[in-house]
């Protein structure tokens, strides 16, 4: 079980990092999500993997550490909020620049219409 668990975390992280290094916002968002899944699984495993154990002492023969579960719960909630925010921000980027490139434009196009627009707009 440990090997499978470790492989899952490894594959999730590797895919996440690969997607994060893409230059478009959509893969970046998906990559961040995959990384946060991997992190949550990793945190879960820090209390050691156990089957058939409950996080309450005395309820079963063996018990498992309840604290990582609480940490994972917190991390999930925060990660969810952050993902929602980054999705909205990516859409805003797409709408503002007519391009979902993370720099707002392609690498060969160095004109920055956004900046001049704001200066003359005042």
């Amino acid at each position, binding site marked *: 079980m440990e090997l499978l668990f470790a492989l899952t975390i490894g594959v999730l992280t590797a895919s996440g990092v690969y997607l994060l290094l893409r230059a478009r916002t959509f893969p970046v968002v998906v990559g*961040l999500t995959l990384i*946060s899944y991997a*992190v949550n699984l990793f945190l879960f*495993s820090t209390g050691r993997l156990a089957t058939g154990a409950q996080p309450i002492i005395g309820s079963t023969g063996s018990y498992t550490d309840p*604290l990582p579960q609480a940490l994972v719960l917190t991390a999930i909630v925060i*990660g969810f*909020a952050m993902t929602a925010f980054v999705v909205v*921000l990516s859409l805003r*980027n797409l709408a503002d*620049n007519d391009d979902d490139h993370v720099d707002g434009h392609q690498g060969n196009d160095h004109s920055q219409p956004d900046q001049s627009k704001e200066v003359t707009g005042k």
Partner: protein
Amino acid sequence: MNHWLTAPILIPLLGGILQVFMGYAPISLRRTLAIATTVLLLVSTIVLLVLANDDSYRLYAFGNWQPPFGIVLVLDRLAALMLVLTAILALFCHIFAIGGADEGNRQFHTLFLFQLMGLNIAFLTGDLFNLFVAFEVLLIASYGLLMHGGGTARTVPGLHYVVLNLVGSAVFLISVGMIYSVTGTLNMADLAVKIPQVSGEGLNLVKAGGMMLLVVFALKAALIPLCFWLPKAYARATAPVAALFAVMTKVGIYAILRVYLLVFGDSAGELANLGMDWLFPLALITLAMGVIGALGADNLKTLVAWQVIISVGTLLAPIALGSEAGISAALFYLLSTTWTVAGLFLVAELVANQRGTAGDRIVTAPKMRNRTFLSVLFLIGAVAAAGLPPLSGFFAKLLILKSAVPGTDMAWLWSAILIGSFFTVIAYSRAGSIVFWRTVEGHIEKPKPLSSNVSVAAGTLVALSVVIVALAGPISDYTDATAAQLFNPGGYLQILDMPMTPEGK
């Protein structure tokens, strides 16, 4: 148990919640309540500073759980100093913001207060995971504040900032997990007890976790090579927001001071002074990078944003050397540089408002309406930031230079700081002479006169560098005592034995 410790968290929380529901109330009412909240916050932090001044540690345990089992807030000299630093900065940024920068977004005050809450939790918490939560609270508020004021120019730097910090959060969680998996605790005092006992294969896990934690804190502090997001993001943010963000990099520095002196300090056995040999050269390179950036800046706000990076390098170099005098000097410089940089951001905004389409770019433009007032503010700010006598930056840098022990490190530190300061002076004089002296004939639309709010806020923040000089004696006594307290982690460990309030009382 001291309930005062929750005040710097509860005041902005309640004030912020009030603001959430008042989005459609008259703006004057919202402004009054928001300023009242910030003033109350300042009062409460001063109370905590007075409390902390007796060298003892104060503890607040949520739910009355005996540490290390529950989450605790711990007040010591360092935490109190950071709280007061932030509250004073926040008050003047807030006064500047109600001069008009808070229009255009009904939730500006909410975000501003929640940002303060996140900062205060980070300074007070005694628990590594709670520090992560505090970082997330202050970050999500800062994302909103960074985008405040609209304008498409903020989208791309904002996106970079958010994505980088989300990756940082993931790394933070991994390192927390690694440390927990070996030690079984996340309470900082308990960690300081457990880390020296780690041995065998656990040692490398904790080492990896500790180094990854340093990467996260370095990202928050904008240490090279993790600093390139900062100038763009800060230069494009609204002025009071950029000024408030002057303290954001200092949260990273605070976290490095707290965790690496307490948990990985001299008594940490094999893991003592983890990562500090990496930190010193990186800090000096950061300083050099900041100076190069400042020389190449083409507008005032970018120049000030690079000044933030210069100050990060100057702060972390003596911290990495790890002498008591060095840390005291760094704390003195921390006060001086945070307020000065914030003041310069505000001055840059005022300059930009009076120069028509030239804005804050370092180019010639028609004469400004309030040129004398603004140029004096810029001069004071630049002198304090570059570290020329007689203002606070000079004394702070002098203390840092004096704290170095003779040797190779001293040679590097002296040359980096002195040469860096020289080129910083060139950067500021170039910018100042072009912006204020080389005026051209031309007609610009008559700008609005300076309101009392904005001129008081910008003027006071810049003038605080004079106040620091006037009060240099008491302040350096306090920072000396803070450094002494940081170097005696035994006191911090006593919070593990503090008795809880018995039931029924």
